[in-house]
């Protein structure tokens, strides 16, 4: 027993000495806070395999999240310097959720001010549960992160699946294309996103004339599931809404439907956080800067990562001398300019960044949502996605 009791004493002393050293070290730095942020990304990201990223399916990433983050910090060099603040970004690659958890713990110990994740929902949750720091989710649109599995420390830059489905449904309402044929793919993500699409149709009183499963296949025995003509035949509709998380089937569906009707969803017209062809609100300058720095076109995922950088810069400028909780408060209350013409902020009820969405076909931006005439008692942006009174995130309500 005795030796065991001595040990803590020693470590306490050691800790006190270390703490003293830290105080001495920290004193001069207290004038200009230097914030460290850590981005946690998958080690071997299947989304970024060349065969996928070259296809550049709308709504899919085509490059590393770190690219746009670095640009945002670089853009803000002058602003940070003027405020006397510093912001340093570190990127850590992890193999799985367990590794993500360890990386998060390590970053917190090393004094990180905030974490960013470009992981799947499980990975982001592992990170959020491992630390007390704010976690900015850059790359996962799953509704469960904003609803039943939400956290008080989680913030989402990318629009949720429900926001994208609402944006598309509003656009169909504005076009008076009310009769919808829904085609849903075979993956679990498709099932989840298909449900979000069906809920949006219901919310906007659009008629689901039929819901059919599809499968990407060349097998003649499966042609009922794979042939666009058969899948879209024998029904009357204004529009085909395809839910295809993979992307290959959806891309090839337009112009191959039995009736000459438009395709929306994951092919044809797609709801996006951003598209490089957007012409208004200074967006071309951002797109040009990003292309100059990375050699590729800015995608919705890049925009979300860049926005996270802007949010962190804003917090650092608001609390240039610390303390850390002032930085965290400024982050949660951020009012951001994201080149979409309106000020955007995080919803208090689920940490989601409220934002307009772009409806594009890959060649241009054809519409914006929320559409004109769809109203909300406080902010029209809150017609997209989960609204406060629904109280879907218990942790925050």
């Amino acid at each position, binding site marked *: 027993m005795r030796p065991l009791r001595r040990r803590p004493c020693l470590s306490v002393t050691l800790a006190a000495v270390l703490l003293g050293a830290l105080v001495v070290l920290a004193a001069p730095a207290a004038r200009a806070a230097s914030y460290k942020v850590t981005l946690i990304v998958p080690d071997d990201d299947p989304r970024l395999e060349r065969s996928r990223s070259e296809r550049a399916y709308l709504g899919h990433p085509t490059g590393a999240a770190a690219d746009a983050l670095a640009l945002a910090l670089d*853009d*803000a060099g*002058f*602003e940070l310097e*003027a405020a006397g603040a510093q912001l340093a970004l570190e990127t850590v690659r992890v193999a799985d959720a367990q590794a993500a958890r360890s990386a998060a713990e390590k970053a917190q110990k090393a004094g990180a001010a905030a974490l960013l994740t470009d992981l799947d929902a499980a990975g982001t949750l592992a990170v959020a549960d491992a630390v007390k720091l704010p976690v900015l989710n850059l790359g996962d649109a799953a509704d469960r992160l904003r609803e039943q599995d939400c956290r008080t420390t989680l913030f989402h830059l990318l629009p949720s699946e429900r926001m994208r489905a609402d944006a598309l449904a509003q656009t169909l309402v504005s076009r008076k294309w009310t009769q919808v044929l829904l085609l849903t793919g075979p993956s679990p993500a498709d099932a989840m996103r298909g449900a979000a699409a069906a809920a949006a149709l219901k919310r906007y009183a659009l008629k689901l004339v039929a819901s059919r499963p599809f499968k990407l296949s060349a097998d003649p025995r499966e042609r009922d599931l794979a042939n666009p003509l058969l899948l879209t035949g024998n029904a009357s509709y204004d529009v085909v809404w395809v839910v295809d998380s993979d992307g290959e089937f959806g891309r090839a569906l337009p112009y191959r439907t039995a009736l000459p009707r438009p395709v929306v969803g994951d092919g044809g017209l797609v709801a996006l956080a951003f598209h490089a062809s957007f012409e208004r609100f*200074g967006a071309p*300058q951002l797109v*040009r*800067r990003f292309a100059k720095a990375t050699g590729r076109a800015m995608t919705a995922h890049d925009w979300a990562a860049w926005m996270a950088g802007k949010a962190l810069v804003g917090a650092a400028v608001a609390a240039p001398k610390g303390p850390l909780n002032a930085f965290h408060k400024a982050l949660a209350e951020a*009012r951001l*300019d994201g080149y979409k*013409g*309106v*000020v955007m902020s995080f919803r208090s009820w689920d940490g989601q960044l409220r934002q307009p969405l772009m409806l594009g076909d890959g060649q241009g931006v054809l519409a914006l949502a929320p559409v004109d005439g769809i109203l909300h008692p406080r*902010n*029209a*942006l809150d017609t997209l996605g989960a609204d406060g009174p629904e109280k879907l995130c218990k942790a925050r309500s």
Partner: protein
Amino acid sequence: MRFKLHLHVALLLAAALAVAAPHARAQGAGVAYVSSEKDHTLTMIDLKTLAVTGTLATCKRPRHLQIAPDGKRMLVACAESNAADVVDLATRKSVGRVPLGDDPEAFDFSADGKTLYVSAEDDGELLMLDAATGKKLRAVKVGKEPEGVKTSLDGKLVYVSSEVASLVHVIDTASGKVLKNIAVGKRPRRFAITPDGAQLWVTNELGASVSVISTRDHSVIDTIQLSLKGARTEDITPVGVTISRDGKRAYVAMGRANHVAFIDVASRKVTDTVLVGKRAWNLALNQAQTQLWVVNGLSDDLTVIDIAAAKAVKSVPVGRVPYGVVLVE
């Protein structure tokens, strides 16, 4: 003998012109020029009839336009030509180009008219250029996407707004040093200086506000929050601003709120709001201070407001995505 005679005639003519100048209209006057970003043209509007009289081909993606201090030429900054078009106001013809650096947005002249200050959006720089040749004299690093540029009345300072950094940079024109960065509202855009030089007004596009800066110590002395009955704050996106010659009134285009606000400079209160076209953008006053001309970026037209009645008189269709207007009287 002959030479002498000529000289006499010339002197007589000069005297006649000098007498006539304040009264008679100079050649080429009586027209408004409106730049349109997507047409590469300037639309000309007759000041009396308010009718479009023609277009003038110019450089690519013309945006900010301003009359040079000599009153004879107008410069039109073109983002895609990386140059300014020089328009001779008497003949209404393009007479030359001045290189302006990459992607120029807005500019202003030095007090003597010899130097141009240009915001170079992509590089995040304020360029100081020779106004005649476009030769780069100096580049001052500022925040990303500098926008509005305004020379102080004494010419010693130039103010530049940075959209990304939400700052107004105060730059010494002689040394090119940034003397101060003034934190203002979100996405600061355009400037106006009161005629006594005491106040600098800057519009904050995403702050739905106007910051009033004292030019003595460069501190923000007030922020005028704009509001409009029936409009949400997010829809009030002010850009263009100008102040009347008597210094009593400021006019602010409220962007997507589709109105112009009349603001009493002394009390800093909005006295009137006038409905114009979509996304009221930049604006200009006529000499008599009786009309306000407002460019509407999203409805491809321009609205002329009768100031005394605080009412729109006429909307004139112009080119695609109009940006700015200059009146030549």
